[in-house]
């Protein structure tokens, strides 16, 4: 295995995690990572060895994800959302799980651009500078998306926490 392939291999778990956070589906995350790795191998000559590999890969993954979303919106398909299907590593009990559920729902209704930015930093583990480069944004734009995303999440989870009838949670049928 070449040094390039070793680096690529080392990035796969983070790529998968970000892919999973974006599409909330394990099989789709598998496919995204495979497509991304395949593309990275085909385009290895385009990569400058002086640059970090991970931001470049994340950029590819986001583009693949966006293409997928665009294709799906043209031709709708039913996809199982498996968030919550497995027990997440909840620290303790019901309250924590409710909070995770609220957080998952709030993430889902975030504008796509904010969700991509927030998850790239928190789950993808990129520095602000790398995340901005991967998303093709000026640093200031990335920071303002991060700020708006966190404010929106805070408001969404706050509303639930302080709603007068906490056991009648708003559900869509």
């Amino acid at each position, binding site marked *: *295995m070449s040094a390039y*392939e070793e680096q*690529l*291999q080392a990035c*796969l*778990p983070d790529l*998968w*995690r970000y892919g*999973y*956070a974006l599409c909330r589906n394990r*099989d789709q*995350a*598998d*496919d995204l*990572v*495979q*497509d991304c*790795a*395949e*593309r990275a*191998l*085909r385009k290895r000559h385009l990569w400058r060895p002086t640059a970090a590999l991970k931001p470049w890969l994340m950029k590819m993954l986001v583009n693949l994800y966006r293409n997928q979303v665009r294709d799906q919106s043209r031709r709708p398909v039913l996809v199982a959302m498996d*968030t919550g299907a497995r027990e*997440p*590593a*909840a*620290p303790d009990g019901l309250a924590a799980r409710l*909070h*995770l559920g609220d*957080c*998952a729902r709030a*993430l889902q209704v975030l504008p796509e651009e904010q969700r991509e930015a*927030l*998850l790239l*930093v*928190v*789950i993808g583990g990129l*520095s*602000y500078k790398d995340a901005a480069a991967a998303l093709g944004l000026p640093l200031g734009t990335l*920071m303002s998306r*991060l*700020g708006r995303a*966190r404010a929106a*999440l*805070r408001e969404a*989870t*706050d509303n639930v926490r302080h709603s007068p009838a906490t056991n009648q949670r708003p559900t869509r049928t």
Partner: protein
Amino acid sequence: MSAKTTPPDRDMLHAYVDGQLTAGEEQTVRIFLANHGDVAAEVADWQAQNEAMRALFPAPDHELALPLTATTSRAPWRAVAAALAMLGVGLAAGWFARGTLGQNDTRIVASLVQEAVAAHVVYASDQRRPVEIPAAQESQLVKWLSKRLGYALTVPDLSSKGFELVGGRLVPAQEGPAAQFMYQDKAGHRITLFAVRAQGSQMASFSYRSEGDAGSFYWQDENLSYALVGDVPRARLLALATAVYQQLS
């Protein structure tokens, strides 16, 4: 330094939450937060959000394999794409060197996969007589098929992966007689291992393809080519194919 007297800006608070500050900067933020309860509450919420996200989207619980090379000529694969739509396919033999498949080699592989898939579709769905010789007569099965293929076969043991040998049969292939071993798990999923003598010794290559639900990979040496076919999730098939490869190499 002036850092202690300047209140941290919003970007710095975010960077604090995301662990992107130097130790000195972190200290500055910590002191500021100790004196500003409202900001501290907001920052604590952000930290809780990060924790929730990490819990919601944990690291993968399965191994992620690297596709070793991307095929350059794809046309033959399109022909079998329809057959692959419902099935994952892995083709395996020994692998000792890597190269790029030429057009002819790719055709050979494509036809091998097609034959393996066709044989799988016909026999795996057969409830009454899926195999010619059952697993109970394994030694007889192996002896017979080895004789017909002209090469000493071994049957991989996939029980550690939840699949038990059902039995096997001889199937015709373009390259000559082929052996098909069938395995089944507790849920009734069937996978088949298709083995045929490799043509020539020129192919020492590895390639990977993924097409929709189906992932496929194959590698060959001068003796045998193996195809593993089954409508099980790709990650599981990959693990099975890896086990086959490890036992046969």
